[in-house]
């Protein structure tokens, strides 16, 4: 297990220390009680770079930008996503948490039946890593966002940030009964048949 420490101030950074300094990455080094020169006020109220509470709209904008800028590093963490199956598949699944295991089984069943399909499992739900999803969905025509959420929260959140292909739908249900691999595989098969029909209608080559 690797332990990642928060960024601490170096020697020179405790001279005229500003706990919430606006930096290139958005991340400012954090002192801890006992460090001479590192004293600051931590509060939930909006504050300036030194931690002093402020009602300035200008400072609030700068600090909001700083905080959100920290997400940019996270969004580039492709190691927090796993993709299974055929890279250029037209049928795609997205699922997370305990449902991901069911979807891996469903994917295996579908592929065993000759279907070209793939699955994306995010370990980072928010911020939404748009580029990762865009790359995944580039080949996808139909698919499912599978989640144990009555309102399909992941599906709705992805729609806020990503241009989902029109054929990608939500397959969501509440937590009373778990998903079964057979039902997910069944829905995948239906999606694939829909795609085949559409391609046939448009005289497109089948895969």
């Amino acid at each position: 297990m690797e332990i990642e420490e928060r960024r601490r101030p170096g020697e020179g950074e405790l001279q005229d220390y500003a706990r919430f300094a606006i930096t290139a990455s958005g991340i400012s080094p954090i002192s801890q009680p006992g460090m001479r020169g590192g004293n600051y006020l931590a509060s939930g109220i909006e504050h300036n770079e030194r931690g002093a509470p402020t009602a300035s709209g200008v400072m609030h904008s700068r600090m909001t930008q700083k905080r959100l800028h920290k997400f940019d590093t996270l969004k580039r963490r492709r190691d927090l996503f796993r993709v299974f199956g055929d890279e250029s598949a037209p049928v795609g699944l997205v699922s997370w948490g305990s449902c991901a295991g069911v979807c891996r089984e469903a994917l295996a069943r579908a592929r065993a039946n000759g279907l070209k399909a793939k699955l994306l499992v995010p370990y980072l739900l928010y911020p939404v890593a748009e580029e990762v999803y865009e790359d995944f969905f580039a080949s996808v025509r139909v698919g499912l966002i599978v989640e144990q959420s009555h309102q399909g929260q992941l599906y709705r959140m992805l729609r806020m940030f990503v241009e989902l292909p029109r054929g990608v739908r939500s397959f969501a249900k509440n937590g009373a009964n778990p998903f079964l691999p057979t039902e997910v595989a069944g829905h995948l098969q239906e999606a694939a048949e829909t795609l085949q029909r559409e391609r046939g209608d448009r005289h497109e080559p089948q895969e």
Partner: protein
Amino acid sequence: MTTTLHPVARLMEPKEFRSDLKPIWCPGCGDFGVLQAVYRALANIGRPPHEIAFMSGIGCSSRIPGYTTAYGFNSVHGRALPIAQGIKIANPELLVLVAGGDGDGFSIGGGHLPHAVRRNVDLTYVVMDNQIYGLTKGQLSPTSRRGLQTATSIYGSLEQPVNPLLYMLAYGAGFVAQGTPADMPGLASVIEEAIRFPGFAFVNAQSPCVTFGDPEQQLRAHKANMRSLATLGHDPADRLKAMALAAEYGQELYTGVFYRNPEPAPTYDAQIAQRKAALRAQALPRERILDLFRKTGAK
């Protein structure tokens, strides 16, 4: 004991603890007096600001850490005590102060009190008791007297107030005191004594809200009515007598130390240090902490 005179402590000036933030309190607020008392107490203790962690919740009184040069943490309503305990346990060398109001401490934060007391982490908790929620412009608080009228309780409170002093004594706090800015030296003295006490120490600072508080309970009334426990001949080692005096909260304004345990219980932080020493031989590096939860023999 880490909060008695530290080896490198020196007599300091109160102004060394004053930050450059201007308090947002109303002119005449009792909290100004509490702040001055804190400066004086810390100056006498002699620990430098960077070795002091000052936690608070939410409210006018909870703005106090920002007006000192200590490390300050203005946290969530009612939650200062758990955070303060964590900070002290993580670094027992720090001097840990906690502040908040009567609502922060005895309403939303009330569930934390008995556990903070029984855990007995070495810290000092100062409640600025003004019998009102002031920051939100005057609502009844847990210590508001029965019958008090506010803008949101125009017919007056139907509830009996809680008794902070009796609560803390009943929970078993080893140090319980009360003060008022109407007696600045006395308030500074009890805060200093509380900091020096090895273990959980509680100071109820009667700190009137000049804008929304009970007009009959302002500093002028304090000056007229306060009675020093020392001059009454009270023995702070007598817990039962302390409880009897504390029961008069709301009728009498007693100042000074109600109770000081003559044989303080071991602090939680000291006990942790002992346990760590005893278990040191078996200690794993923290990167291998999950090994503690694996079945024996499993990789």
